[in-house]
């Protein structure tokens, strides 16, 4: 099975038309030394057998539906209506909308996505999407450095450790300096911002789940001539004050929490929102409303001179393929829930996380680590190595206790709750934890 439509007769007729004797002939001009290498691949399988093999592999996983693991990725409900609409072939099998007359579906969906993201972030504009939250952060910081003409970045340790690693890779590439501010009692301290800093970065709720009052840090950043970049879970923004309201110039985050399948880490999408004043420094695609020759409203890619296919070595970024379909799913989710629905889902996770916190703290040897107030994730100090605890819990059918990197402290584990959890789920996890830690 190879999905090609050609009959043997057609192949012969076409070969004749192009003056070739066989399919091999089409490669005759390649250097003989490299032609027809020995390659070992499994034998092809019929469709049912491919599925069978995939099911065998899938059976070797323990699905984490209703996981209590956190770290920015959580088990959430993916509405079937979102799945169904996003699976439509027109969305699934189109590419970048370079021909707007036949791409209004994707273009308008992006325009609406940009609107929803800007609303959530409390900022004026958003681009069409980035790969994930971590690369959105890296690109957001690069934007700030271009805008300020500076090469130093301050990042709070409250930013997800993997995001900081990706940021480090991107900043190394351009030779910019990254300084990390350690958390103090679970929150970002207000310190002296070094001279020449172009971007100050914090996360809210932070990696430990704690809510941060970032307005003073935003002010300090601005006084130092830097832009303020905030990493924020978009689901939390259904409830929490948006970054734009407390001084963020740029807001970024990962869209998985908007009902996207976890998919072992991807694909999700990264969002990147900012002020209109910085729009010419934005990386990636951007859609604008306009009119057609008959005066009808339409949508089109705009400010394309920022992008690699026009600006080449002087482009704002090399990004081309982004995460359009998953971003579309995020927008569909937001539209399906509306402002009330989103707030309800977020608050349910908050309530369940607080209940779980209480239950787990009843277990001897378990101590709080994330300070209150926190949102829907929190960190506890366990009496044992969290890797072992996670393993033992998995053996009992629970996915919980994400090990927290040592830089934050010893024996720390992250927990999360969402709208999928019921009181009995929490009780069952607490019971399992009690056994594991006994």
């Amino acid at each position, binding site marked *: 099975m190879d999905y090609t439509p050609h009959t043997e007769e057609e192949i012969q007729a076409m070969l004749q038309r192009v003056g070739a004797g066989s399919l091999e002939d089409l490669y005759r001009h390649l250097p003989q030394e490299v032609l027809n290498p020995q390659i070992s691949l499994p034998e092809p399988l019929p469709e049912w057998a491919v599925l069978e093999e995939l099911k065998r592999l899938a059976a070797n996983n323990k699905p984490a539906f209703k996981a209590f693991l956190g770290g920015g990725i959580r088990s959430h409900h993916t509405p079937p209506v979102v799945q169904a609409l996003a699976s439509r072939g027109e969305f699934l099998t189109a590419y970048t909308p370079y021909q707007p007359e036949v791409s209004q579906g994707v273009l308008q969906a992006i325009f609406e996505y940009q609107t929803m993201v800007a609303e959530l972030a409390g900022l004026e504009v958003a681009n069409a999407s980035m790969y994930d939250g971590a690369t959105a952060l890296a690109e957001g910081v690069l934007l700030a450095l271009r805008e300020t003409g500076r090469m130093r970045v301050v990042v709070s340790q409250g930013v997800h450790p993997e995001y900081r690693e990706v940021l480090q890779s991107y900043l190394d590439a351009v030779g910019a300096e990254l300084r990390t501010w350690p958390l103090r009692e679970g929150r970002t301290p207000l310190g002296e911002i070094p001279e020449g800093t172009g971007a100050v970065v914090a996360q809210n709720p932070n990696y430990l789940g704690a809510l941060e009052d970032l307005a003073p840090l935003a002010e300090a950043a601005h006084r130092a001539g830097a832009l303020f970049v905030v990493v924020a879970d978009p689901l939390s923004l259904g409830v929490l004050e948006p970054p734009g309201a407390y001084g963020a110039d740029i807001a970024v985050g990962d869209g998985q929490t908007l009902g996207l399948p976890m998919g072992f880490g991807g694909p999700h999408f990264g969002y990147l929102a900012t002020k209109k004043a910085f729009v*010419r420094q934005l990386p990636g695609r951007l859609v604008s409303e306009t009119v057609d020759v008959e005066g009808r409203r339409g949508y089109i890619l705009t400010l*394309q*001179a920022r992008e690699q296919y*026009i*600006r080449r070595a*002087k482009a704002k970024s090399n990004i081309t393929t982004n995460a359009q379909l998953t971003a579309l799913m995020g927008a569909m989710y937001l539209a399906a829930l509306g402002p009330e629905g989103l707030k309800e889902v977020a608050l349910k996770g908050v309530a369940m996380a607080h209940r779980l916190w209480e239950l787990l703290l009843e277990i001897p040897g378990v101590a709080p680590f994330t300070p209150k107030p926190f949102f829907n994730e929190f960190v506890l100090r366990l009496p044992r190595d969290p890797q072992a605890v996670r393993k033992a819990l998995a053996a009992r059918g629970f996915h919980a206790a994400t090990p927290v990197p040592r830089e934050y402290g010893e024996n720390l584990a992250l927990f999360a709750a969402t709208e999928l959890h019921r009181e009995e789920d929490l009780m069952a996890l607490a019971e399992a934890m009690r056994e594991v830690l006994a």
Partner: protein
Amino acid sequence: MDIPKDRFYTKTHEWALPEGDTVLVGITDYAQDALGDVVYVELPEVGRRVEKGEAVAVVESVKTASDIYAPVAGEVVEVNAALEKTPELINQDPYGEGWIFRLRPLDMGHLDDLLDAAGYQEVLESEA
């Protein structure tokens, strides 16, 4: 294509018009026509010192972006702020209202290294 005889030209389609100890710089009629509708101009900072041939400004149309190079070495002493709001001046009046920046050359004598109108005409003919 209009090529005024009162100024100097570069092979990269800039013009340079001497005015006292400064030169006004813009792009030629041919260049604006090739670019199409100009939608944005990125202007340099006043006070910037530039080398001959250094990219000083960027002129963007819908489908492309073009660097504008300094015809001679010098210091940027003024920019055409009107282009921020009305970049289309470059299309409408490339040799007048559509000027881009003013340089104070290190040496006005360097202008003699540039093309005159006839020389530029030849460049255009060779490109066609």
